[in-house]
């Protein structure tokens, strides 16, 4: 394997980490819709960290290794339309992903407040925060943008 082959393998592994993180968040998005107690909500926090780590490593890895390949591999240029499209989609997905995290963390913060206040029973406000429509729409859009990046990477329009 050449050095570029290793970088390509790491680029693809990063893409897998990114999507794996999104899948982890999809499972949590579905599960948290039934969570109306602070305990049930807070118990999901370690799993959100797994998803956050996977998407974080994936996002940074795909960008860095992808940029390396764009400059290093003959036949690819950074201004190729499909590479520019991938960079735009990456930035959009990253920005919206951050907003998704904020939307869902409101429920987590509320659960911590309720726990600190000694309230352990079901709470309608917490359930409403956990069922955030804004977060659901944002996560759906981020997932669709990620699928578009995958399509762009495979079909390479304009290459």
């Amino acid at each position: 394997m050449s050095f570029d082959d290793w970088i390509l393998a790491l680029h693809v592994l990063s893409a897998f980490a990114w999507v794996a993180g999104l899948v982890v968040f999809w499972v949590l998005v579905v599960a948290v819709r039934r969570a109306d107690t602070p305990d049930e909500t807070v118990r999901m926090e370690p799993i959100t960290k797994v998803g956050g780590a996977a998407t974080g490593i994936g996002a940074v890895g795909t960008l860095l290794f992808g940029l390396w390949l764009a400059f290093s591999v003959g036949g690819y240029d950074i201004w190729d339309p499909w590479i520019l499209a991938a960079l735009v989609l990456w930035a959009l997905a990253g920005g919206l992903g951050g907003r998704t995290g904020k939307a869902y963390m409101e429920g987590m913060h509320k659960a911590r407040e309720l726990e600190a206040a000694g309230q352990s029973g079901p709470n309608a406000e917490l359930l409403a925060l956990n069922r955030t429509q804004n977060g659901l729409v944002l996560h759906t859009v981020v997932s669709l943008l990620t699928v578009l990046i995958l399509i762009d990477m495979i079909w390479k329009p304009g290459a």
Partner: protein
Amino acid sequence: MSTFLALSRPTEWNFPLFVHVFGAMVLVGGLLAGASTLLYARGDARFLRLGYWTLVAVALPGYVVMRTGAEWLYTKEGLDELPDEPTWIDMGYGIADLGALLVLIALIVGGIGVRRLRNGGGTGLLKATMIIAWIVLVAALVAVWAMAGKPN
């Protein structure tokens, strides 16, 4: 070598490749989500069920889509006509076959575990499911490396 292949790939391979990669990504995501949920469940029946059903509803369909794409691509690329298969194909098939067996064992063992949760048992069986899921996840990542880097 693989970077050259990526540059020169015929366009009719793209859709089967998309199906293969998309399925593999869902499989890896399902394994990570299911194994992580089982890991952090700490005996809580709700989270143990969530982890198990994530493996059933996400990882298993992901495997089927990945494998369908793999077979499609295998014949489309004419790899089935090669006298000697490249190492990365052997690795991919080996890990996919062994992974399928392990996933099946994990789901059967976990299914019994989930049934036993009603009577307060089953956590040990679901722990076994979790360990198998982590092993398959690591093996799947090795397969991804082999498919992308194409050693030899």
